[in-house]
């Protein structure tokens, strides 16, 4: 039992960005006696070849590729069967799984099947003094816990967008086709429909994000934010209350329960700055807050602040930005 195996997902088509984030985690561990990096690559169809290529270009030496028509968006049960088969064969000491929609179901279930140690939602992994250390946020982002994992195998799930995609590091290695038998009729869940609710560049990958909160007062407020996002070339997200109220899709929620984002710029509008929200944006390079309450906690994490009513500030900002852009 040695080595690190990343579960690389091409379930949605191309290789997911979080799969490469897992490779970054694996590379942080490999030098410390945990062994080389392998990948279980899951998907269906011709794009798998390109996905395998990308993994190799980032330092994955051995790729076990599973190509099956049921390995598509959201099909956790099928992905679990394929992953378990590869993991039993490769016998890695550490399995890295992205804590995305499928991974947060698959990771714990795989750990249960392997009798493995389990830590979820890691934001950082390292080996220090011979111990595998995993860091994760706890208590609504108020604290950071460090867990030491002594047992192998260990399954770790890694929060999407907690780590950067690593620099390319070409490696020569093997790609092996692993045939897997999956009986669709025997699966407990089947995805009937997949619905996308985000712009071309999704919230998690946008370089500029405008977030709206309860202070927007209703769904109309988000129309103004949408305009701001458009002129800036960014995406719109929200705090929890607007998602709970149905003003915006739940998949737009940013924070502990929602997405973690690390854009170059995050503009929080009508958001008080509860720790559970800030937990999802603390990796943003520049944080701007627009809030009419000068004592709102968001100002203690923001770099630039405007105290004011968003209904006056945001339209003025849209106009000024257009002016600077020469529009």
């Amino acid at each position, binding site marked *: 039992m040695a080595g690190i195996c990343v579960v690389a997902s091409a379930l949605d088509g191309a290789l997911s960005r979080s799969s490469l984030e897992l490779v970054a985690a694996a590379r942080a561990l490999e030098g410390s006696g945990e062994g080389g990096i392998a990948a279980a690559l899951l998907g269906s169809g011709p794009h798998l070849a390109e996905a395998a290529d990308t993994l190799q270009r980032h330092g994955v030496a051995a790729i076990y590729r599973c190509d099956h028509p049921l390995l598509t968006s959201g099909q956790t049960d099928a992905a679990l069967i394929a992953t378990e088969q590869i993991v039993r064969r490769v016998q890695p000491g550490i399995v890295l799984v992205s804590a995305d929609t499928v991974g947060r179901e698959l990771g714990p279930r795989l750990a249960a099947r392997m009798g493995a140690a389990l830590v979820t939602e890691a934001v950082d992994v390292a080996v220090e003094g011979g111990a595998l250390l995993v860091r994760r946020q706890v208590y609504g982002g108020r604290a950071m816990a460090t867990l030491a994992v002594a047992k192998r195998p260990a399954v770790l799930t890694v929060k999407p967008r907690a780590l950067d995609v690593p620099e390319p590091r070409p490696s020569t290695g093997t790609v092996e086709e692993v045939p897997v038998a999956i009986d669709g009729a025997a699966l407990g869940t089947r995805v009937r429909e997949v619905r996308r609710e985000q712009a071309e560049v999704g919230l998690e990958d946008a370089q500029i994000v405008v977030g709206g909160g309860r202070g927007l007062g209703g769904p109309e407020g988000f129309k103004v934010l949408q305009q701001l996002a458009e002129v800036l070339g960014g995406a719109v997200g929200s705090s929890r209350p607007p998602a709970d109220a149905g003003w915006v899709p739940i998949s737009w929620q940013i924070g502990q329960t929602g997405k973690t984002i690390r854009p170059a710029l995050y503009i929080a509008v009508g958001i008080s700055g509860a720790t559970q929200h800030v937990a999802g944006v603390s990796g943003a390079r520049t944080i701007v807050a627009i809030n009419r309450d000068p004592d709102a906690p968001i100002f203690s994490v923001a770099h630039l602040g*405007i105290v004011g009513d968003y209904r006056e500030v*945001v339209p003025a900002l849209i106009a000024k930005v257009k002016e600077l852009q020469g529009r």
Partner: protein
Amino acid sequence: MDIVVCLKQVVDPELPVRDFAIDPATKRQVREGRPLVISTYDENALEVALQLKDRGGAQVTALTVGPAAALGDAVRLALAMGADQAVVVDHPQAPDLLGVEKARLLAAAIRRIGAYDLILCGCESADWVERVVPPLLAEMLGASCVTFAARVQPADGGLLVRRVADDGFHEVDVRMPAVVSIASDEANRPRLPKVKDIVAAKRKPVQSWPAGDLALPSGGADGSGVEVREVVVPQRTATCEFLDGDPVEQAASLARRLRDLKLV
């Protein structure tokens, strides 16, 4: 339909930051003197169970692992909202247990409850946010699993579940028995009990089982290899620069700053 809803009691997660402290001995949050509530999304899970009961009839059991001595309110609220009965697995150290350890206790209790078609959980504990109990329960009980469900409805002898996904949502057909974890949604906002419900709740059965009496399932993910080394409260260092003036001036300075940062 027989439904078990797993409810965890936690320190109110929305308490002001100044009331938050870590106990260096347990490496967990100090609970003393802090209000305890049902973990946020567990109330949404209970609401989903009660809506299924309202529509098609169901027997709803509220299940919690916790220190029985400190649990009164959570159980009473669950019964007042409309659960038919409650089971408390009494474990004095429950607040310190990690998800892997709790899942085995919950699985053992659910086996002892016996009849279940659907087990509902919150999508994450408000305090440790591990998101492990639902998938682990599914494995231990041999049940189907969907996490982060916004909506659940009966369909073709099974369930149709809307799962919140990375960039939208999935509609998933689910076979029972199933473990489904619930995310908040406009359709599952927890109901408030009326006075008569609170009175009626006093007559509903509550069983308390010592954790040590349960026959734990063998196998499963292993918590023994994981040790909490430290839990630290990071110091924030950012200082906010306020942009002054009337709204137009504020907007103009912000636009210029964004240009200087090459963001415009």
